[in-house]
């Protein structure tokens, strides 16, 4: 018994030390994002007035993250949590929130955009793979979504960090202006993509294709989230050939085998296109769109 008391005492001492240590830290608010795209977007608004961190590195699959220790600690220390929602993080975010007993602000940015691909009641069945009942959650590749989300984040920041609101508002307005110009430029530069036939591995670029009117010939995943079967891949070879497909695209986290298989059978080029970017303080949302569209443009050459 005495032994266990000693143990508890040691724990209390550690806790005491830890709490006093954390109090000594600076007063800036901590914002924690699930996906790095929200971190690089927030950076445009908060600049150096808040600490930002992201759970995911640029090219990790947002569906398959584990509730690892470092993430629990980061949620615990944050004042504002920014995630996509729409069940994208269903496997790990609820666990992070529960473990860290987090009760502060959570923003699910998918609430502020028009979701694509919302399944009908009949389609919500695991027979159809990893169906997202609230629609396709890969929302950051439509520039209008970025605008809507930037404004929603500004509103939340007003609640969480009202002292710096004027600063945030100014940055936000500047960003929207720059972003509007960027959209026009990109739309003009990449109008060649309009109607181009492309095959995708997963539904992760759907918002981009919706924006630039790229024609999706097929997905290599017959059912979202279920690895493609050889039988299915063989069945789509003819269709892909006949529709004069120009390119096969997959995100960096997707398995390469299916792309290589189709590429071999049809002679169509397969490329990896960035899906997001590391949050490192240097990358911007402008860079992300440039990198993705450059990669597609290079692929088409």
């Amino acid at each position, binding site marked *: *018994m005495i*032994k*266990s008391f000693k*143990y*508890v005492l040691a*724990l209390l001492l*550690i*806790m005491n030390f*830890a*709490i006093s*240590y*954390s109090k000594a830290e600076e007063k800036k608010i901590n914002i924690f994002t699930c996906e790095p795209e929200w971190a690089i977007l927030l950076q445009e608004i908060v600049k150096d007035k808040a600490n930002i961190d992201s759970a995911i*590195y640029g*090219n*990790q*699959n947002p569906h*398959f*993250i*584990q*509730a*690892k*220790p*470092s993430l*629990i*600690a980061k949620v*615990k*220390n944050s004042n504002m949590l920014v995630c996509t929602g729409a*069940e994208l993080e*269903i*496997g*790990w975010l*609820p*666990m992070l929130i*529960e*473990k*860290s*007993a987090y*009760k502060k602000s959570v923003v699910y940015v998918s609430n502020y955009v028009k979701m694509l691909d919302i399944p009908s*009641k009949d389609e919500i069945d*695991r027979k159809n*793979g*990893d169906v997202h009942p609230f629609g396709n959650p890969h929302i950051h590749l439509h520039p209008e979504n970025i605008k809507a989300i930037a404004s929603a984040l500004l509103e939340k920041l007003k609640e969480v960090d009202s002292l710096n609101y004027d600063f945030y508002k100014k940055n936000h307005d500047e960003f929207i202006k720059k972003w509007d110009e960027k959209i026009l430029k990109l739309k003009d530069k990449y109008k060649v993509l309009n109607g181009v036939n492309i095959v995708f591995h997963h539904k992760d670029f759907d918002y981009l294709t919706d924006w630039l009117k790229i024609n999706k010939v097929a997905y290599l995943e017959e059912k979202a*989230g*279920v*690895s493609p079967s050889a039988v299915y891949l063989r069945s789509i070879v003819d269709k892909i050939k006949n529709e004069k497909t120009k390119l096969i695209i997959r995100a*960096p*986290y*997707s*398995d*390469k085998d299916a792309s290589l298989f189709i590429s071999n059978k049809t002679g169509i080029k397969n490329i990896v296109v960035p899906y997001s970017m590391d949050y490192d303080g240097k990358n911007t949302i402008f860079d992300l769109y440039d990198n993705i569209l450059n990669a597609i443009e290079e692929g088409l050459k």
Partner: protein
Amino acid sequence: MKFKYYVLSAVFSSCLLMGFEGFANQNAFNPDISLILNGKYQYDNKILANDGGNFYNSSFLIDESELTISSSIDDKFNGALTLAVMDGEIGVEEAFINSSLYGVNVKVGRSLWDIGYLNSKHPHSDNFATRPIAYEFFMGESFNGDGGQFSYVLPVKKYVEVGVGVYNIDYNSDYNNISYSTYLRFGEDIGKNQDYRIGLYLLANRTDTKNIIDMEMEDSSNNLFIMDYKYNINFMNDSKLTFIGEYYHNNLAGVNDDIENYSADSGYYASLVYQFNRRWAVGGTYSQIFSKNEDYEKYQIQESLLMVSYNNSEFSTIRLQYGFAHNNDSLDNYNNHTVILHYVVSIGAHSAHSY
């Protein structure tokens, strides 16, 4: 007993139906329901060294089916029930409510408590078809006594979690049997693609027999010390390598008796699993126990497990496992070969990717 079983199963199936119907009606207040089904083919060959006995056993069987219903209760509480259903028996594996107060998580009821790595996990989420022999030796099927646990993640940059709990596993009005636990966990990332967690746990059990005159019973005190470690390297394309290990050391002493009655056991397991992609994984576990038999003679049990598993999706797994165990106890010396082919599937709510 039979009648009770039918009534209960009728109640549960109607719960399920209501749940699914509710889902179709978009009734957002329905609890999450998930159901685990599993079954296996098992082949055992046990060779007893002492008398040369050689036993075969080959069987098809379903394991416990598991039904979990969970939900937030109101703004303060969550609750969950997990039932393990087997022929004519329904066991309550977990039934708890939890809440958090000033950042401290409180869980009360019956649960797979946070004591070591494997104990808080449901076996269907394991990487292997069976738990390592060291786990079974020290923890039994699982430690899920009735009681409560507090846990707290410290508000510091690195992950540090502490917890304490008190439980009652063997309820009996004649004597008191109480267990206490306490733990400390630390974890962090190493670079971009590696992470680990290490934990120290103490589970102390006290049996106090003041109230009884039964001479067979005596006061006893039991301290189980556990250390666990988990390490991941994540590669691209959902491929990763995972190491999980636990070390157990148990001190058992009859408090009223002298040193003769004192005994200490220890054991460990170490497992390594490589996941090629989302579909295929292979892994091995090595486990060892050091203990003493009734004649106070030392013995060892060693066990090796090898497995290959296939996941069609996040919701279904098929696994083939070979196991070999050797016991050098002079009273129970055996070699045991086991082959298991099993399936584990989950229906309903999306399960958590717990660490």
